[in-house]
């Protein structure tokens, strides 16, 4: 409680109670003063000086990376065409597959739905992982979308 008081995380009511209590309790006042010291010690933990040529090194790498920043939301036609191709392919395979064993495919569609949902949760991490490789990223999104559409189509047919 004292810690949260110091962190200013108490409600105004709790804070008022705490202030009143502190006026009467020398033990808590002592503890509060020690806690304050702990936090000051954490804050005063010395900063290490970074290497003098750090900026230079970083900017050198960025120049070498030769990967100019692309404006966001630019449509990438290569990825789009590839994605659509894959979508069509995925859709076709599903249509063929359902004619073979319908029960299994309904089950599979549900599983794919879950997979797509999990994939969407991971998209942000994926974005970082790919290190700005937007082509690949868009391709994966298209693929996920294609799978999703195909799965929906299959579920609809068996409702």
């Amino acid at each position, binding site marked *: 409680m004292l810690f949260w008081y110091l962190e200013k995380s108490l409600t105004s009511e709790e804070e008022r109670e705490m202030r009143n209590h502190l006026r009467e309790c020398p033990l808590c006042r002592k503890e509060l003063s020690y*806690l304050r010291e702990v936090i000051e*010690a*954490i804050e005063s933990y010395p900063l290490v000086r970074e290497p003098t040529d750090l900026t230079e090194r970083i*900017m050198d790498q960025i120049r070498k990376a030769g990967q100019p920043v692309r404006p*966001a939301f630019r449509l990438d036609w290569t990825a789009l065409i590839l994605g659509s191709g894959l979508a069509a392919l995925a859709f076709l395979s599903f249509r063929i597959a359902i004619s073979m064993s319908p029960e299994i495919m309904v089950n599979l569609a549900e599983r794919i739905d879950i997979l797509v949902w999990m994939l969407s949760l991971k998209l942000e991490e994926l974005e970082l992982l790919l290190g*700005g490789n937007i082509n690949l990223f868009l391709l994966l999104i298209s693929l996920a979308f294609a799978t999703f559409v195909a799965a929906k189509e299959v579920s609809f047919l068996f409702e």
Partner: protein
Amino acid sequence: MQDNDALLVRRARQGDREAFARLVTRHQRYVFNLAYRLLWDYEEARDLTQEAFLRAWCCLPAFRGEAKFTTWLYRIVTNLCLNRLNELRRDLLELNHECLSAPAEFDPSSLCEEKERREFIHRQIEDLPVKYRLVITLRYLQGFSYREIAEILGIPIGTVKTHLFRAKEILRGN
């Protein structure tokens, strides 16, 4: 400061390296220090800082400006550090009380000199488990709010508070 960041980020997204260089000079000390406090190795921290800024440059199109640039940048740094620690096969996110340098029953408040107590706490910080070191560094070095720390680490606010509280308990000598 944040407005300036936003402006520089916008320019950097258009490919302006000068603008990005200014972001680097502005944030490199704190990024380096976070990396250093997690890895405890000067060379590793230097390499990681370089990698983090390189990653940030490459991923700028993915930065939508909904969060602060620093929150986003520290998320990259933290992820890279945790991956690196994992690679180094260090004991990750494991609460390890045994690593504390002082015996458990030792009460630092018994040290008379404030300077002594401060030095003791500084040594304790060095021995804190990674997850606690991370949270207290983000909170007290950079002054991030609980919400921002939660965003950076991808954990609930409640967990941030628990980590902070546990870190304080350890440093306080409990």
